[in-house]
């Protein structure tokens, strides 16, 4: 019953999106003085992943390598669905971002089949220089963190710095503190005239929550971001900081990030570097990636390299490298196709041989409106 109702709900949304005249990617209308819009994101993915090394948590925050790697994964299914509702009236905006995480087929995944409220916030926008947002929303931490729910549209999957770990990564534990949690109150704005901007954001939030929704933190999470856009928007340099004090084993953790986004002719370079320090120093994380892409007509081929090191987990303690290549193709302004290949290595890690060179292939058809 649950699956039928969710599938029907998704189908109704998709049909509405296809039948309504889109305005450059949004279904919009006006009710009185308010402007109402509906945007959505829906994908169909095929994923193959080789035999990843597995970790087991032997004590809180202590991990060991499992003697055998995970079985290969080969799945075809709908993975992500988001529906974003917005109401704008002059300086005020309300946004609700609904998702069916891990697909609408709820057989195997913890959140599958349920529609959740991913973000819900209200916003007052005085002008270009100042806005105030309250509610629950993704932390504006790096290039991708704000829209990681639509990550396969924008980037190769599984970026270290926006970690939305596959199930077998999450099962190995220890990665929960890599991505900043949602925040709840933010002031943001941009200084200077377009396209030369200095954008800022300062925010505060509850930090980690337990699975039951309680907030055991000893204080609040705080952070901020500065982004300078130069050369007519063709260069962007950003720095971010986020800290929260969560229950043991991690205690206080401090996230520091730097990002670079630049165009050289038609060549687009995106890179981020993340450093997470924990109070014990035993679970520090250092990660970075570089991605190069160049539009060729409707296609955008890319290559990339990720590095991810997690001191708490012997699988990642010496750094995992992920080499990537692939291409996105814009079939229409509402349909994107993507093919990606990733090759993972774990040099120096004491893991089973079979897990030391892991291949991953992902094909995706992504519909947006």
């Amino acid at each position, binding site marked *: 019953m649950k699956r039928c109702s969710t599938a029907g709900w998704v189908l109704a949304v998709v049909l509405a999106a296809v039948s309504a*005249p889109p305005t450059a*990617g949004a279904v*919009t209308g006006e009710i009185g003085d308010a402007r109402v819009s509906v*945007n959505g994101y829906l994908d169909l993915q095929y994923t193959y992943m080789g035999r990843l090394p597995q970790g087991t948590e032997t004590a809180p925050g202590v991990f060991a390598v499992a003697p055998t790697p995970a079985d290969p994964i080969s799945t075809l299914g709908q993975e992500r669905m988001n529906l974003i509702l*917005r109401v704008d009236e002059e300086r005020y905006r309300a946004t609700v971002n609904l998702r069916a995480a891990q697909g609408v087929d709820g057989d195997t995944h913890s959140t599958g089949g349920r529609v959740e409220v991913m973000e819900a916030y209200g916003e007052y926008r005085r*002008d270009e220089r100042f806005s105030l947002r309250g509610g629950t929303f993704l932390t504006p931490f790096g290039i991708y963190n704000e829209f990681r729910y639509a990550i396969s549209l924008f980037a190769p999957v599984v970026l270290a710095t926006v970690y939305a770990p596959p199930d077998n990564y999450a099962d190995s534990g220890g990665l929960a503190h890599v991505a900043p949690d949602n925040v709840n109150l933010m002031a943001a704005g941009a200084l200077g005239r*377009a*396209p030369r901007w200095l954008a800022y954001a300062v925010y505060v939030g509850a930090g980690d929550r337990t699975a039951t929704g309680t907030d055991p933190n000893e204080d609040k999470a705080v952070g901020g971001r500065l982004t300078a856009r130069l050369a007519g928007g063709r260069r962007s340099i950003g720095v971010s900081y986020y800290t929260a004090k969560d229950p043991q084993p991690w205690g206080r953790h401090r996230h520091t990030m730097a990002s670079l986004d630049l165009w050289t002719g038609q060549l687009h370079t995106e890179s981020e570097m993340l450093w997470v320090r924990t109070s014990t120093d035993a679970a520090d994380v250092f990660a970075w990636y570089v991605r190069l892409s160049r539009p060729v007509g409707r296609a955008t081929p890319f290559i990339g390299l990720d590095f991810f090191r997690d001191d708490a987990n012997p699988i990642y303690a010496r750094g995992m490298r992920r080499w990537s290549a692939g291409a996105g193709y814009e079939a229409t302004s*509402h349909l994107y196709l993507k093919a990606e290949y990733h090759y993972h290595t774990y040099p120096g890690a004491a893991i089973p041989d079979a897990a030391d060179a892991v291949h991953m292939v992902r094909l995706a058809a992504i519909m*947006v409106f």
Partner: protein
Amino acid sequence: MRTRWRRVTALAALALAAVAAGPAWASDIVVVVNDRVAAQTLSAEQVRAIYLGEQRFWNGQPTYPVTYPDQLPEMRAFLRSVLGMNINEFKSLWIKRIFRTGDLPPVRVNTPEEALRAVSGHAGGIGFVDAGALEGATGVHPVFRFPG
């Protein structure tokens, strides 16, 4: 004799081309803004920043840009001459912007008359119409002109 005939032919061709093209202003497209917008002129770069979502306020009001369906000649000319992109690039840019920033794309109307009504009805309104359609319009004033 042959030379004179050639000159006459060339002059006739020029005259025909001029008649066919009509007056220069008739094929121009004009960017208009709501009368409450103080600016009397805008540069192409400023218009572009508004339509691509890089400038979202002016004079303390949210901008309210207006566009047309893809097939209208005004839309094609605007994309080509002011934004420097085709319709797919424009849509693609806005789709990504919607997910990244939460900003809404320009409002789409079907005719120049609807565009003028929308611009005059919103304090931050901005749109573009054929210069001929501007005659008699109230509540808006032109700030930029480009060839159609």
